[in-house]
């Protein structure tokens, strides 16, 4: 007899199907859907195990996907959200630029103007050709340790244009013919990338992954035949579209609007304001995101590429849907994203830089879109998630003490707290909105073994998650420094001045910081979007951002607050002051909820809120709203709250 199953999954849905399955055998549809996902997983495993830089082989900052011959994203398994959702744009440019695709071809594509995310994401595209027909493209996109930028960082925040950014751009350039490298391209990269050995190893890993995808897809087509596979693809995309339609149909009809603001940085005193308008049309089963009301491109690397902006809106929508909808082009037919050419939010134009397109402003777009859904009322949407690409995610470089060989890579060591949802507290290993939960994290020991640095501490901080009925996820603090040779670090921490917001009465998460510690132990705060050269004996300390809370903290189950106190997610002080929970002590000296004192205290805190007139206090409003709540008033109340907190956020 076997053990119990070691896998857990959502419970069966009682809902009735929207429509009967189409012409294809329903069995075969299910079978082939599994098969495509399995191929993507095999590609992913190959790249993970063989990658050379820590950002690939520990953090898994890469994604594999399968796109159809007519540029529809078909399967992406657990790829990083921002990487995969726009994969079809890249294959479209491949077909346009290379109309004569042949077996054995491979293309290197990292051009954000042609559908890529940002310059540091090198994508290998392998067209899968059967009997002369281009049926699929196997895609492997990997963030490089270095991409030849003008400074040793893959995020050039202060680059005024692509020339200042400096990275080599490959606008879908052929890199293999007849399954062999085109050495001209390889030599260019080896010459202009700081760690050529690592780059080439990572390139091989990506090519290996794409080629494995090609091999398996050909086997699959060989087994089932082109007509069957074709009708499966059509069927599966239709099924996915129906699933999305059904999921959207459950939402109330509304037009939502929210905005958010990237922190000011030197040279950009107002930061970057982001506006999102969302039209939810449940009857038509469609959602439209309008990003057109946004500023023009800016002379910084913060501009968001089209692939990222489109992907960001889809991420926010998928995060807010109740159903588990397949992530492919079929489902996305139900989503429209409007972008204004020349705007910072997806309308990237020459010569502006999108070096940081995958994180900072994009994370503002995702956050404000998912928080806009809260305007549908309690039970919808998400708070804002921590989105700081700070010290815990810095790009670090230097040289190895003995060999003198250069090293450069990116930490995925820190952590932003996840947003609280209507159902649960924020996810702990959230990373950030654009790659939420999917990216892995570094091992301290493997980092110390691979690079000449030392991690001094790494811990999750008490009271860092935004308070709420559901609490935001915690932020991590990390301290590290070089061992014996100088180390340069680049960090890009947004959410230091405008922290992730809570919703419907929930509080904001903790803001990000960056602090340099000198040889004498003296700490000095540094600009959170910048770089530092650390000498041996010096350290840098950083905290990413905590997630925002959902709902009024005075409504949090006191027993949950007790557990949070025991687990040191919440301090005793915050339990009393923010959550209004009062504890006695049990025999072991551990806190137990004093229910009487707690309800007295909560009543007093509510009264104090009401008394505090003239202050714009979202929590107080939430309380008033809840006092006379009717189903009809529910959504309006949500609306007001969001309006409130936007006002509060405005400078």
């Amino acid at each position, binding site marked *: 007899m*076997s*053990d*119990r*199953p*070691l*896998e*857990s*999954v959502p419970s*069966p849905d009682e809902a*009735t*199907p*929207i429509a009967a*399955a189409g012409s294809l055998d*329903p*069995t075969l549809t*299910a*079978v082939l*859907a*599994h098969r495509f996902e*399995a191929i993507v997983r*095999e590609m992913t495993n*190959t790249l993970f*195990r063989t990658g*050379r*830089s820590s950002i690939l082989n520990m*953090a898994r900052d890469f994604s594999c996907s399968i796109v159809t011959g007519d540029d529809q994203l078909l399967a992406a398994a657990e790829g990083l959200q921002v990487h995969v959702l726009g994969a079809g744009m890249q294959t479209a440019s491949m077909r346009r630029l290379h109309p004569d695709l042949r077996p054995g071809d491979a293309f290197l594509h990292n051009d954000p103007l042609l559908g890529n995310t940002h310059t540091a994401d090198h994508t290998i595209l392998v067209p899968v050709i059967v009997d002369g027909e281009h049926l699929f493209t196997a895609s492997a996109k990997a963030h490089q340790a270095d991409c030849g930028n003008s400074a040793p960082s893959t995020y050039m925040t202060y680059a005024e244009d692509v020339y200042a950014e400096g990275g080599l751009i490959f606008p879908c350039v052929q890199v293999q013919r007849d399954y062999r490298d085109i050495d001209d391209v390889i030599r260019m990269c080896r010459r202009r990338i700081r760690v050529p050995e690592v780059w080439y*190893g990572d390139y*091989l*890993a990506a090519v*290996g992954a794409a*080629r494995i995808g090609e091999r398996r897809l050909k086997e699959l087509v060989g087994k089932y035949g082109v007509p069957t596979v074709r009708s499966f693809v059509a069927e599966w995309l239709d*099924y996915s579209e129906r699933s999305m339609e059904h*999921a959207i149909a459950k939402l109330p009809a509304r037009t939502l609007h929210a905005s958010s603001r990237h922190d000011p940085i030197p040279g950009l005193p107002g930061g970057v304001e982001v506006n999102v308008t969302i039209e939810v049309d449940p009857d038509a089963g469609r959602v439209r995101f309008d990003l057109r009301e946004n500023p023009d491109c800016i002379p910084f690397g913060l501009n968001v590429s089209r692939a990222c902006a489109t992907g960001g809106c889809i991420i926010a929508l998928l*995060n807010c849907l109740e*159903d*588990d909808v397949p*992530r492919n082009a079929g489902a996305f037919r139900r989503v429209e994203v409007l972008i204004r050419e020349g705007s910072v939010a997806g309308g990237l134009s020459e010569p502006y830089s999108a070096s940081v397109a995958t994180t900072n402003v994009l994370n503002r777009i995702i956050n404000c879109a998912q928080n806009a859904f809260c305007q549908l009322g309690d039970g919808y949407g*998400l708070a804002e998630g921590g989105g700081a690409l700070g010290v815990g995610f810095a790009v670090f470089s230097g040289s190895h003490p003995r060999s003198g060989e250069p090293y450069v890579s990116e930490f995925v060591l820190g*952590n932003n707290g*996840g*947003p609280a*949802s209507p*159902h649960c*507290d924020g996810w*702990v290993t959230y990373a950030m909105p654009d790659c939420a*939960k*999917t990216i*892995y*994290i570094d*091992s301290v*020991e*493997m980092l*110390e073994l691979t690079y000449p640095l030392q991690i001094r501490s*790494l*811990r*999750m901080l008490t009271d860092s998650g935004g308070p709420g009925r559901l609490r935001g996820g915690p932020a*991590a603090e990390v301290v590290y420094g070089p061992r014996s040779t100088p180390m340069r670090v680049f960090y890009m921490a947004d959410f230091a001045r405008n922290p992730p917001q809570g919703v419907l009465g929930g509080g904001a998460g903790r803001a990000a910081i960056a602090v340099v510690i000198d040889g004498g132990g003296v700490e000095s705060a540094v600009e959170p979007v910048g770089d530092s050269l650390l000498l041996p004996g010096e350290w840098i300390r950083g905290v990413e951002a905590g997630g925002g809370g959902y709902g009024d903290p005075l409504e949090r189950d006191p027993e949950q607050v007790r557990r949070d106190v025991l*687990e040191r997610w919440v301090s005793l002080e915050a339990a009393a002051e923010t959550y209004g929970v009062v504890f006695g002590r049990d025999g*072991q000296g*551990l806190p137990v909820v004093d229910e009487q004192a707690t309800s007295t205290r909560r009543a007093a805190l509510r009264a104090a809120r009401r008394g505090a007139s003239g202050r714009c206090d979202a929590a107080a409003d939430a309380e008033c709203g809840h006092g006379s709540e009717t189903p009809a008033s529910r959504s309006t109340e949500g609306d007001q709250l969001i309006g409130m907190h936007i006002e509060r956020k405005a400078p």
Partner: protein
Amino acid sequence: MIGLPSSTAGAPAQDSLESARITCDIGGTFTDVVVSELSGRTTLAKALTAPAQLFDGLLEALQRAAESLAEPVERLLGRTQLFIFSTTQATNAILERTTARTGLLCTAGFPDILVRREGGSLRPYDYSRAFPDPYIPRALTFEVPERIDVDGNVLCGLQEEAARERLLEAARLGVEALAVCLLWSTANPVHELALGALIEQELPGVPYTLSHQLNPVVREYRRASGAAIDASLKPLMQQHLPEIAAGLARHGFAGELLAASSAGGVVPIWELIERPLWSVRSGPSLAPVAGRTVAAAETGSRDVIVCDTGGTSFDVSLVRAGELVFTRETWLGEPFVGHLTGLSSVDVRSIGAGGGSIAWTDPGGLLRVGPQSAGAQPGPACYGLGGTQPTVTDAALVLGYIDPDNFLGGAMKLDAAAAAAALAPLAERLGLALQQAAHAILAVANERMISAINELTVNEGVDPRESLLLAGGGAAGLTIMPIARELGCREVLIPRAAGVLSAYGGQQSDIVRELTAPRATNSREFDYEGVAATIDGLRGRLAAFESELPRDLIGECERQWFVEVRYAHQVWDLSVPLDGDGVADEPALARLVERFHDAHERVFAVREPGQTIQMSQWKGRTCVKTSKPPLRDLERRDRCADGRAPAEQRRAFFDELGEVAIEVHRGGQLSDGAVVCGPALVVEPETTIVVYPGWRLRVTSLGNYLAESE
């Protein structure tokens, strides 16, 4: 209660003193027992597990076996020289959170190793499920001031006073066991050892685990997680294992008691009491041991895919080139958010798919099967125990693949009408006839198993089309042939002991102990002396282990040596065998390097000639051979002179044929060499084999079933 028959030898033992070997596998639902004797006679028995009193279920199964042998259980145990058992108790205790209240001592500054794990999630867009708790709560995690660096230098000495305070705090909080995992304890264990001594001083009697002793791997989460699980199991296993030993002794057993480990072998019971982590998933690890032996004897196959399908889970494991396949990534619970054992153990992938898996349609109208299971209670609708949702077993019954009057050897009657009623609404939603819907359910269930098999085989570079598929478990025979066809396997082997595969694997297992030691070097500047010293150290420890074994168990010792290797800048290793017991000179090094390039190309499709190769961990494994029963078949009752008993008939549905009349054979009535052509059923007490159209099933000379696709 279900009374289960045992299948067995016909005649009672001729020689009552003939020595026996007993293996048992105590699972969540059933306790399986296999008794083998030197004569080759093998007896199988099954009983329901008694969760509260594991020994009672075991005794029940033993009594059934003894009954079949027509002797009292005391006499059977009295003539048993070797008793091998495996138990899911450790696995279940972890899943049910009934392990000891355990604390973690860690390096100051790094308290969240168990909380964060290694990141990742299979559900990126799902915000409805809370982040799962760490294996040890933060409240019971204690930071100890100390720090050792990557080279083993002490950067900050262990602050004993502070450590003592933490221990007293742990005691005050009622901690019953302690795990110790400090950064770089693999490079220098001095602080972990000092903490161990302090625990013995301050908290005498509280069991503890030091991470570097349990599993000296780099990567703090893997070491910490293993140590945490191990420590948390110690109080339980220190009670449970001696109880079993005492219970057996009370009933006359005076031989050697060994227990299965997740390393695909057995170890003396005291080893398991000291390192209970090894017992986690140990039962399923024995299935490929059985598969390896049976496959080698029957077809000479060196690549074997072993499937074990029970009521609630489907386990798949692999024999590659005649060797078991190991992994360092055994998750308890869902990958990334469950808990990792971190051990190098037999790679057994488990998914929630089996006879009890429930079929449903999702909102988009797609048919899905499992992983929710009706379990044993209420069970499939056809059990008549209150289940109303359609399951794989119900579908099989609707298709006519199970004889409702002969389920589990007739011990349980199934309700065919209830199965049909449960399926009907689903069929309607799908717009299919009842039998077509039932067929679709089996096909979709198969697909999840095929994915699991594919993931395991492709990871190892094994081509299913060139492998033998071996099926075990109660539900194995229902769909193994279509699975084989999808995978491209032409041959399927179903051992006679399929229903008790793990217990049968125990019969074929050796004593296996594996030790590892870190020694980093590379192919460009290879550290011949250092490696020799490391291997010498391992050799001494393996010899010490061997010398502690009871004298009458020590057969031939076979030692194997491995090293974990990768290309420069990579961080994930491939385990590559050494020739002989070291790397003595340049030719030996060159051979090792070549073997790594080959392995890398086999698994990852690329090689990089000329690239520097890095070596990290050195591994020695000793395999102490135990005497095994000869691979004779189980004798069968009612053997017919012409080798072919008159078959019954029943109606069954096959996708390509529609509903047809097929023959039903009793397995015990088929003689060696008998051939059954599909479509047909072969009924065994523990399982039913569906011979699909286009397949022929042959009874081998060893009494197993070999199916071939035409």
